[in-house]
C-alpha cells in the first residue's frame, strides 16, 4: 500500500515531539476525519531553526508530517511556505489515492504554524492565507 519512503518515515518519524515556547504552532484536521496534525516552529532570522510535529492519524498522516518537517528545516519562511503537498508527496515517492488528503493536511499544518508565528510577531507573510476551517473541504470521491 505505502511506498518504502512512507514506511520509513512512519517507522522512524523525523522531528517528532514538541518545542517548548515555540514561535509558531499550528494544529489542523479534526478527530472526526481521523487525522490531526500539529506543527511547532522555532524561527530565527527568518530561518526555520527547528520544527517538530505531533500527529494523530494514519500511516500516511504521520509520514507526511515527518517529511514536511524535514523539508522545511533550515529553510527561510518564504521557502517553507512553498513546500507544497505535491512536494511532500513526491519526496515520499507517492501516496495511495485515498491518502492524498493527508499530504494536504501537512501543508495546512505548516501554513497554520507559519500563520501563528506571523500573528505572534505582528507581521505579514506574503502569500500566506489564514488556515481553513476544514482541510477536507472541496475533496471529491470517485463517482459511479
Amino acid at each position, binding site marked *: 500500500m505505502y511506498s518504502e519512503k512512507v514506511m520509513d518515515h*512512519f517507522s522512524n518519524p523525523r522531528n517528532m515531539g514538541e518545542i517548548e515556547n515555540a514561535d509558531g504552532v499550528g494544529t489542523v484536521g479534526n*478527530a472526526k476525519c481521523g487525522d490531526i496534525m500539529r506543527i511547532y516552529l522555532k524561527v530565527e532570522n527568518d530561518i526555520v531553526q527547528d520544527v517538530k510535529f505531533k500527529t494523530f492519524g494514519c500511516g500516511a498522516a504521520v509520514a507526511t508530517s515527518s517529511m514536511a518537517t524535514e523539508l522545511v528545516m533550515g529553510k527561510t519562511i518564504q521557502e517553507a511556505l512553498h513546500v507544497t503537498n505535491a512536494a511532500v508527496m513526491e519526496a515520499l515517492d507517492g501516496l495511495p489515492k485515498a491518502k492524498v488528503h493527508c499530504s494536504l493536511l501537512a501543508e495546512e499544518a505548516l501554513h497554520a504554524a507559519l500563520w501563528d508565528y506571523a500573528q505572534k510577531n505582528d507581521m505579514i507573510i506574503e502569500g500566506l492565507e489564514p488556515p481553513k476551517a476544514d482541510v477536507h473541504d472541496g475533496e471529491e470521491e470517485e463517482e459511479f
Partner: protein
Amino acid sequence: MANIYFDYAATTPTHPDVLAKMLPYFTELYGNPSSIYKFAQGNKTVLDVAREQVATAIGADEKEILFTSGGTEADNWAILGVAESYKNKGNHIITSSIEHHAVLHTCEYLEKNGFEVTYLPVDSDGVVSIDALKNAIKDNTILITIMYANNEIGTIQPIKEIGIIAKEAGVLFHTDAVQAVGHVPIDVIDNHIDLLSISAHKLYGPKGPGALYIKKGVKLKAFIHGGGQERKRRGGTENVPGIVGFGAAIERATKFMETESARQLILRDYLIEQVLEKVPFAQLNGHPTNRLPNNANISFDFIEGESMLIMLDMQGFCASSGSACTSGSLDPSHVLLAIGLKHESAHGSLRLTLGESNTKEQIDQFVEALIKIVARLREMSPLYEDYKKNNEV
C-alpha cells in the same frame, strides 16, 4: 517473520482437509453438473451432498439452500428479491444501523427506488432495540433484515425475539449470519428465520461460494438470470470445487464448534482482560458477554487505528480497525458510531478476531507488543498532549 493472525472475521484460511476434498474437482472431475453423462452427473450429486451439509448446519432442509457467489450476493438476493416479489404488499423494510455494507448499501439502493427503509438504532452494546423494532412495523412492512452477529463488535442479536415479532406481524425475516454460522449454533426453525445468508470463507472454506437459505414457501424471484441451475433460481455454472469445499467446511466447523468456540471464548476473555488491565484509556466495544466467541473490539483513546495496525503489522500481527483511514473513507465505522462512540474513539479501535490457530502464547506476545505501540503512538499524539496538559495537577 511468521505472522500471527488475529483477523479471522475478515477471512479464514481454507482448511487443508477442506482443500483436499476440493482438489479432484479442478482437474479430474471437472464435468458441468448440467451435463447428462455420468462423468458430469456425479458433480450434480456432490452439489447435493454439499447442500445437505449446509442445510444440516442451520437446521434447514436441503431444498431450502441455494448456492450463491458469497455472503454479499446472498444478502443482495434476499433483500432485492423480497423487495421485488412482495412489492405489491408493501414497500417498507426494517434493518439496523449496524448491518454490513452488503445489507446497508442494498437498502440504500432500494431507497433510491421507491422503498422506505427504517434503520433501527442499537444500544451502547450494539443490541437492536426491540421496542424500536415493534414500533417500526407498519402495514406496508415486507421485510425485517437484521444480522445474526455483528462483524465488527461481535454483538449477537436477540434473533429469536426478532423472529417471533416478524412472524406475528406477518413480515419476512432475513438475517445476515455470515459471521455467526460455524461459530455459534443456529436453528432457522426455532428462530423463525425466513432467509439467511452464509459465506464459506468465514468458516475455513474457500473464498467464493456462499448460500442463501430460503424457507419453503417464501417466494423469491431469481436475482441472477440464466441457465436452469439451482432449480432455475440462480443461473451460472456452479463453482463445483468451491461448493464441495463449502460443504466440507461447514460440516467440519459444526462438528468442532462446541469445543473450538469454547476454547476461543476463553482466549478472547483472556485477551480482553489483559488489554484492559495493561493498557490505560482502553474500553471494550460490543456486548460484554453476548458476543461472538472469537471477537474482541477495543478502543484506545488519543490514537488512530491504522497507525496501530501498521505498527502491529511490522511485528507480524494481523488485525483490523474501524478507523476511516483504513478504508480510505472519511468517516470511521458506522457500527462504532452507532453504539455511541465519539469519532476519536471510533478511529482508535482495534478488532481482534480469533481462530483455530491462535494460542495463549500468541496473545501474550500480542499484548506485550500492543502496550508499547499504544504508548508510542500516544507520545506522537497531539490529542494525548492536550489531555495531559488539561489534566496536569
